[in-house]
């Protein structure tokens, strides 16, 4: 199985709408990641796809065939539950092998496959324990093991790595990707980890309050966010936003706010009404440069906070009431309240409508390598 299509799917829990008229097509063999703030409806969407929750409205199709009335056990999907949902009465081994047993896989094959999955997940020596006797991360790995050990038409993974340490997460990420390639099936993945989303996905769907905001490739999402919400959501530390208006000065389009005046290059939308002129300028911290010495076009500011992030330093600079974050390489040698000159990479500026946040302008697509 293959293509998963949601058409106008809505789910409400007694009045409260959790997923709102969702239209989404996940291509065959695609790796789609769902991201969005806590409570935006990601898990609910997965549960509907998998058949555990019936959509209040709309329909779900697998390979063009409607499955709305198909119970979960006939849908041929595999899922990692956000809450694990391990069988407390079964050992780890039985937990992982359960689906295989249900699929009448021969015993020997099961135990072999379980062992292999356990090895991958580094829980080989826990196989005879009950879930009760495991640590949080170990439980999560069992939950993951249960989903990946079997063959399924689609794999739905709901934050499968949230409780793992960075190292393990990197390993597991690689394993999941490898599985994706090996089995060549559709994967729908929920995560809060942006690195995960960026590195693993073919496409990312950003949700907010039950509505998909943008569904595109990771680069697209990062570089050309459809609206201010997506821009703010993806990227950590998040993009800097400054509210201001468009002005035409000296023949060039300029962004002007009490604190900043930034000339804009490239095509910008025609601003006709005063409302249209109210815009938000966005720039990612890594596109902000700092220099101790004055540079033409740079804005003077004061160092407000310095946060070391290991390889980089996150510097918050105050420019007349606006706080701008810059991510600069270690070492950064200026102290609190020192004056610093802030520059914006002119090719990396974003513009959003102040009213509804839709993107007006985004950097040109860059060619990598």
């Amino acid at each position: 199985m293959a293509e998963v299509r949601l058409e106008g799917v809505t789910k409400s829990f007694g009045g409260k709408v959790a997923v709102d008229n969702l239209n989404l097509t996940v291509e065959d063999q695609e790796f789609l990641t769902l991201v969005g703030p806590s409570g935006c409806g990601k898990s609910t969407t997965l549960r509907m796809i998998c058949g555990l929750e019936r959509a209040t409205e709309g329909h779900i199709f697998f390979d063009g065939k409607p499955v709305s009335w198909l119970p979960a056990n006939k849908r041929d999907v595999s899922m990692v539950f956000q809450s694990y949902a391990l069988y407390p009465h079964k050992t780890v081994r039985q937990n992982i092998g359960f689906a295989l047993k249900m699929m009448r896989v021969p015993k020997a094959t099961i135990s072999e496959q379980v062992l292999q999955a356990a090895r991958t997940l580094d829980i080989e020596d826990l196989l005879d324990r009950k879930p009760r006797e495991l640590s949080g991360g170990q439980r999560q790995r069992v939950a993951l093991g249960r989903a990946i050990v079997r063959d399924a038409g689609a794999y739905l993974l709901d934050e499968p790595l949230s409780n793992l340490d960075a190292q393990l997460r990197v390993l597991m990420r690689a394993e999941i990707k490898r599985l994706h390639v090996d089995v060549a099936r559709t994967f729908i993945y929920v995560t809060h980890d942006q690195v995960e989303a960026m590195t693993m996905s073919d496409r990312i769907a950003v949700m907010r309050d039950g509505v998909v905001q943008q569904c595109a490739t990771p680069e697209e999402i990062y570089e050309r966010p459809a609206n201010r919400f997506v821009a703010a959501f993806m990227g950590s530390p998040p993009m800097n936003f400054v509210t201001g208006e468009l002005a035409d000065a000296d023949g060039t389009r300029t962004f002007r706010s009490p604190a900043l005046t930034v000339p804009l290059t490239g095509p910008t939308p025609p601003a006709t009404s005063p409302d249209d002129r109210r815009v938000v300028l966005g720039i990612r911290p890594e596109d902000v440069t700092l220099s101790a010495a004055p540079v033409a076009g740079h804005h003077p500011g004061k160092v407000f906070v310095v946060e070391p992030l290991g390889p980089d330093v996150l510097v918050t600079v105050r420019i007349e009431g606006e706080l701008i974050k810059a991510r600069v390489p270690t070492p950064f040698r200026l102290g609190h309240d020192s004056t610093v000159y802030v520059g914006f990479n002119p090719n990396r500026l974003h513009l959003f409508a102040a009213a509804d946040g839709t993107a007006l302008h985004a950097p040109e697509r860059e060619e990598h390598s």
Partner: protein
Amino acid sequence: MAALTGFAERRPLGDNAKAWALNAPAMVVIALLVAYPIGYSFYVSLQKNNLKRPRAKRFIGFDNYTSLLSDHAFLNAVKVSALFVVVVLGLTVVLALILALVLNERFRGRGLLLSLALLPWAMPGVVNGLMWRTIFDAKTGALNGLLQQLGLIDSYHAWLTSGTGAFLFTALAQVWNTLPFSVIILLAGLSTIPSELYDAATVDRAGAWRRFTEVTVPWLLHPLLIVLILETMNAFRAFDTIYVLTGGGPGDATTTIALLDVQTVLTFTDFGLGSAYAWVITAITLLISVGYIGLLYRKGNFEV
């Protein structure tokens, strides 16, 4: 490190002490109220003790028990009881399980059905016995009336006059009566199963039956254990219904040990022998219960 224990605060009770302390109230009440009667009844079982002949009372050791081995009535009663237990227990457990599963679903009228399921329990035994008597009555019984009106029988039957008939109908009445307990215990057991386990199992491609065997049953093993023990106990002691319906007849067909016991104690006032019967019943049910426990306890003993 030894020095540290010196200024350690008051040690809380260990698990052992705590457990016994927690059990103390229940143990005291039970010991106070039934230890003496139980001990006394065992003592009596070692006596020749018939209230009709109080002067003939004397201690005879295990003679009452050994006499059972050659007691035809007793041996037959053991057979009848065993069969009765098997039939009643089997029917009760299966029906109760199905009913509990039904009640565990959401549907309109669930509350009502649940209350109805408790109904047979609330009926005093005498009323219950009389109810069944009027239903199975050979002359005016409701069952006869119903079956005839449905065209299933031509004329009224005397359902309880053949050995098998009496046995089966008595068992049916008993099942109706003991169903509620099992239903309630199993239903409450079902309600403890986290629904996400069913979600997980469904996604793992388990159909309804496999979900039942793989998730429901393991979680129900302990409630089932109680049901088995108690229903076995009940079936072994079934008296009211049998007594009212058949009095143990025809012939010996429905004379269970319990019936024999009650008859021996209350009608024949033979306390010595009656107590011995009672202790045999105790021993048998205890043995069976320990068997159940050995079979199910560990399997169902997991923590969430």
